[in-house]
């Protein structure tokens, strides 16, 4: 909020450095393990100096259609994100603006869609998708992920919509705009930070999901998370490849987050009302 002075800035950077170190150490471990030769993967004390090998990376692509799986993940994650943001923010807007006792129940019902343990519904989903021919297609994943992501979006966006000054919508209403236009041109842009986090969360949730992706996809729509985990086999956990895979699959996420950061604009509503 405020622009810190020099001393505060130093403090902020210092604290942030500590936080970053703590939070990124495991990432460093992923990265370093991904180039660590298998024999010294686990060793005591942990091997810190070694000749890096890119074998795990080459193996990753050699033994699996990894690029295709990346694409699958991307389709499922982006699809679900777009889908959830669209429907979720519309619903959130309605919930934020309609004052009605029943609205609580609807909002809560939507949230409860996230509450049911996924394990319990894997089989019924399998049956539905099998019957409809959607099994092992990205669409199936998009649908399922949206079931979890819509509640997320609704609940986050509602908070952000609540913060948009009503006066702006009123101004647009006076100017001759209908509800949808007001939503699109005025409210949504002003809730951009909320939209950005919702997008990030939806994307990441979908990107990471494991159980449904495992149970409902095969070679056609297998996601990269399952692919990485598939290096956990009956005789060995191929740590190097798992780490290499984990590292690679971070990249799209980072790109996506960086892209969304642009919407994380400060004080968007500044200057709009007295």
């Amino acid at each position, binding site marked *: 909020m405020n622009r810190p002075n020099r001393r505060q800035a130093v403090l902020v950077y210092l604290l942030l450095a500590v936080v970053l170190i703590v939070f990124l150490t495991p990432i460093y471990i992923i990265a370093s393990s991904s180039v660590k030769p298998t024999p010294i993967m686990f*060793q005591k004390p942990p091997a810190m100096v070694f000749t890096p090998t890119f074998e795990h990376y080459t193996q990753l692509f050699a033994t699996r259609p990894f690029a295709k799986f990346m694409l699958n993940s991307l389709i499922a994650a982006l699809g679900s994100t777009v889908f959830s943001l669209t429907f979720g923010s519309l619903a959130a807007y309605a919930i934020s603006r309609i004052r009605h006792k029943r609205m609580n129940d609807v909002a809560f019902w939507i949230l409860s869609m996230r509450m049911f343990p996924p394990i319990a519904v894997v*089989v019924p989903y*399998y049956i539905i998708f*099998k019957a409809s021919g959607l099994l092992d297609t990205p669409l199936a994943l998009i649908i399922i992920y949206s079931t979890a992501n819509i509640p997320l979006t609704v609940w986050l966006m509602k908070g952000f919509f609540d913060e948009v000054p009503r006066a702006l919508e009123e101004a647009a209403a006076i100017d001759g705009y209908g509800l949808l236009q007001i939503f699109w041109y005025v409210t949504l842009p002003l809730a951009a930070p909320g939209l950005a986090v919702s997008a990030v969360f939806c994307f990441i949730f979908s990107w990471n999901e494991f159980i449904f992706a495992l149970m409902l996809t095969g070679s056609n729509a297998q996601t990269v998370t399952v692919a990485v*985990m*598939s290096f*956990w*086999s009956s*005789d060995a956990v191929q740590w190097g490849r798992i780490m290499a895979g984990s590292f690679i699959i971070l990249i799209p996420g980072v790109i996506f987050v960086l892209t969304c950061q642009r919407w994380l604009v400060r004080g968007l509503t500044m200057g709009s009302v007295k």
Partner: protein
Amino acid sequence: GEFDDVELKMLAIGDTSVTRLAPIVGEFEELTGAKVQIDQFPYPGLIDKIVIEASANTPSYQLMWVDSPWVGVLGESGALEDLTDLVKRDAAEINLDDIVPIQLQENTWQGRLLAFPASGMIWHQNYRKDLYEHPDEQAAFKAKYGYDLAPAQTWDQYIDIAEFFTRKAGDTLAGETLEKDFYGNAQAYSRVAGAITHDFFPIMRSFGGQYWDPETGLCAMDGEAALAAAEVMKKLVAFNPPDYLGLMWDIRTGYMERGETAQSSYWSVRTVRLTNPDEAVLPTIGEAGYAPSPTGDGNAQPTMTGALSFGINSKATEREKEAAWAFIKWGTSRDMMRRFANEGSGVSQFHKSILSDAGLQEKYPYYQVLLDTQENAQRRIFHPFYADVEEVFGVELNKYMAGETESAQEALTNACTKINTRLKVFPQDMRLRWIADPKAEIFN
């Protein structure tokens, strides 16, 4: 080719029984015209996926990768095609006589062959041959225990050896000063992926233990043998790396492969690494020795086999089944296996001729152990409730090892009680049928 119009999909895993084959399925297509696609999934969750797949009426997968303990559940639910007739028909082609019989038996259910081995496993012990043969160590051992240092034949010896070789950093080992701690043995105690049971059951078997009471078909794993096995594991804790409760099978073998432990007993699928410097440190710092699993009394006791196999989805069309069988024959054929063996690391072999091949034995010194111990080996557990057993014993044993349960007896009784609660729902004749292991009909 013959199956130009057929496309086969295999629900599989990413281990050596499959990974060697996956890249060369094109060869099979050239031969037969059938397209084969192998989807590789993680081991955790794979059986779940197979069961769900098996519950569907129209299969997505015609071929399925099967771990032999799953045969019971898959067999009883009719998920897998009976291969008996096909095997009989093509006995010559597949060199049926050359296959270690127990590996075939592993894949049977009520005498019917439900899957065909692609990798044959034996539970056996690996040890630091270089240390065992070191004169200083030999002398010291003899002085301390009164008998010669050699691969353990009994679990008591195994424990002695474990104790003997457990050294702290700074101690001397084979004439050299240790930079870090050295362990007497490495066994798995983790609950993750059922690891603890994977070590417990073989030990129990080597004490002559049985899974089931042949009279009632109920849990017998709280008997003396089981108790002894639990005690052995508990005693070994002191000589295990300190993270013993977190050791999964895979990390436990790592200690052997890095030469950080004197001995370790595990499935032979990983043994090959002990010969390969690309995958293990041991070949560069020492030498591995191989021996059958110790037993309770030192007499030859039934060791444990296991098989990683290929089965056919019983709901596939006839034609798909034909093609699938052709694929299995091709992928598990003796020629293919020999090819893998020649290429280097890989598949745990199950053809007698390969295991006894002198050239290959030189390359893979443990082949002889595999060959020998399979003589009077017994099957792994194959009960339809195997998953329950693994899970329940995993919890109870782990609790005991962690010190949460007072005695081994209590832990094992708890486990058996839980299993029996589930089993007693079923009539006794059914239970007895589940534990029956009639000789595979293919041998008739």
